[in-house]
């Protein structure tokens, strides 16, 4: 339980990329430090060896000079004096007569060797017990009378320096490695925790909690930016899902009524029709209901298609003035028959790039809305005016209007004002208008004309055309 968790966390840290990366860097660093170490070690050693050999050779040559001037006895005297001074660190001397008898010196006798030698002096009987014999580096020289001169220095100076270098590098390397691992673990853990929070959120969402969001730390780093982006995406998806849910429940709800009526008509036809005329009446009513249902479906489909922007391929430049005017003329007789006055005030020369059939449907829907939802005697005006920045199309009436607080809702699918619930219509007309306007980059707004309502579509001047 609680012990399994840290162990698992550790494995995860070891496996995590943010840990492996520092580790790789640590190894690389160690390798370059190793190369540096080797260079320093060997150069320093060689330099020191050269230095020691030079000191010993100089000393030996000076002594040779003395030997030539003052003979063996003079040399012995000089060596004895120098042994007392020890000016440049401990220097050991040995002067051996040709018969291998030690004339003077603080080293035991040995067979003569010329040049640089490393050696450990053979212990003297007396000193062996008390003093540890150090390793020496010496310079041997056979003098002109056959006697042997050896000048030596403690070789430990070299090994001391070497071990100092090794120690320094060992400490520095160890510390680096430690820091790299600890830092890697810390970084890995930090990243893991943040990635964990993303995983947790996505799991929560998969389990159905669409409102779950990834916590933002507020550091404004790349991960925060990523998280902010993901959260925004989740918000948009949730919004779309809510919209979809709303639409499907609306559909289910709004189609129940006409389907119920359809069923009722069919029942009537089966159970109550006594004459062919009864039967025809019932089936006609059923067909009418079915047609209304189909119309609702095709309107929904159309809205979906338009909202998906799938219809842009049918876009072409068209004379919007002529289109609006011809729609007005199409509705003129129908408006007269329903005792409405339809005023058509269209300015010439408004062109626009769009889908002619969709635009026709958009204007028609607005005109029909005005005609159907206002009482007899109402004046409906269909206008198209040029504006500095483009154009404005307006469908207005002097009817009862709609309450201000419902202005925002009338463009929703299936939204119907209470007073129009009893009249025919799917409640999709204005939703389609809004979708088509959106596809063409037109903005729709409602204005209260007191009395009456005005729907205004405004469009910017077509940027692709140089309008005259």
């Amino acid at each position, binding site marked *: 339980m609680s012990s399994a968790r840290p162990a698992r966390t550790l494995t995860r840290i070891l496996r995590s990329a943010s840990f492996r990366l520092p580790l790789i860097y640590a190894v690389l660093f160690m390798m370059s430090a190793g190369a540096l170490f080797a260079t320093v070690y060997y150069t320093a050693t060689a330099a020191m060896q050269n230095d020691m050999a030079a000191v010993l050779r100089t000393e030996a040559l000076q002594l040779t000079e003395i030997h030539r001037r003052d003979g063996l006895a003079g040399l012995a005297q000089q060596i004895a004096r120098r042994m007392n001074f020890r000016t440049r660190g401990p220097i050991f001397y040995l002067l051996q007569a040709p018969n291998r008898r030690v004339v003077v010196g603080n080293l035991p006798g040995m067979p003569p060797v010329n040049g640089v030698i490393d050696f450990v002096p053979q212990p003297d009987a007396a000193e062996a017990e008390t003093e540890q014999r150090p390793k020496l580096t010496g310079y041997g020289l056979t003098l002109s009378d056959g006697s042997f001169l050896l000048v030596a220095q403690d070789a430990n100076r070299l090994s001391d320096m070497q071990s100092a270098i090794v120690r320094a590098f060992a400490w520095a390397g160890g510390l680096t490695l430690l820091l790299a691992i600890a830092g890697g673990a810390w970084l890995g853990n930090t990243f893991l925790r943040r990635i964990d929070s993303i995983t947790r959120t996505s799991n929560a969402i998969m389990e159905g909690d669409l409102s779950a969001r990834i916590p933002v730390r507020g550091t404004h780093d790349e991960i925060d930016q990523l998280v902010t982006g993901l959260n925004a995406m989740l918000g948009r998806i949730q919004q779309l899902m809510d919209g979809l849910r709303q639409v499907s429940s609306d559909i289910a709800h709004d189609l129940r009524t006409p389907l119920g009526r359809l069923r009722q008509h069919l029942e009537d036809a089966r159970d109550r029709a006594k004459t062919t005329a009864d039967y025809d009446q019932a089936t006609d009513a059923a067909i009418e209901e079915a047609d209304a249902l189909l119309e609702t479906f095709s309107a929904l489909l*159309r809205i979906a298609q338009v909202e998906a922007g799938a219809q842009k391929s049918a876009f072409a430049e068209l004379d919007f003035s002529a289109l609006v005017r011809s729609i007005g*003329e199409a509705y003129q007789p*129908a408006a007269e028959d329903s005792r409405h006055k339809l005023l058509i005030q269209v300015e010439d020369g408004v062109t626009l790039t769009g889908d002619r059939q969709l635009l*026709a449907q958009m204007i028609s829907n607005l005109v*029909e809305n005005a005609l159907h939802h206002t009482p007899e005697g109402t004046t409906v005006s269909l206008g198209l005016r040029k504006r500095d920045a483009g154009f404005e199309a307006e469908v207005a009436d002097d009817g009862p209007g709609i309450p201000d607080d419902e202005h925002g809702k009338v463009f929703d699918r299936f939204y119907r004002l209470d007073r129009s619930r009893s009249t025919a219509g799917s409640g999709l007309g204005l939703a389609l208008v809004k979708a088509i306007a959106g596809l063409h980059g037109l903005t729709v707004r409602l204005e209260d004309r007191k009395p009456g309502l005005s729907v205004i579509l405004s469009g910017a001047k077509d940027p692709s055309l140089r309008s005259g």
Partner: protein
Amino acid sequence: MKILLVEDDKQTADYIAKGLREHGHVVDHADNGRDGLYLATGEKYYEVLIVDRMLPAMDGLSLVKAARTSGVKTPVLFLTTMGGVDDRVAGLEAGGDDYLVKPFAFAELLARVGALARRPPIMAATSLTVGDLEMDLLARTVTRAGKRLDLLAQEFKILEYLLRHAGEVVTRTMLLEKVWDFHFDPKTNIVETHISRLRSKIDKGFDKPLLHTVRGAGYVIRAPG
């Protein structure tokens, strides 16, 4: 009339074939695109092809394209559930002559098949005549029994379309599409109100009416007698 119906939904196919046969047509039926193409390009001559858009083996668009490529000039009516503007355009570009969105009223199908089969109508004519009604396409005037009739632009277009299809049933949807280019179903009785005004202009005050309403189907203009 010999008609080839290419439709994979059996119920729809039976319904259409039965209806067309009841109206005196001879109907052959293929339930997939490949058989449809085989029949359309075969020995047998058809006057109209009715083709569903979504078909097994070969879709309707490809079928019609292939048939047109191999020289078949038979008029094609597309049937489809895909009613988007793009779908309509694609259908017409593939070589279709008319387009009917499912579901449809049977009378609509019948009228459109009739209109297709009699194409090409008198396109180059400068005047159209039915009975004592005459339309001068150049001067854009209409007279009946020598008396000048004063028609509005849209009434003129409606009458022109009816005259070009004189004797055939023209449906409300056909008028919406051809006269106003409306490919949706308005809630308002646009067509009815225009027809009633047109009728009062061309038939009022004359003994024999020329413009008739065919119940449940549409309108027809025909010479009396």
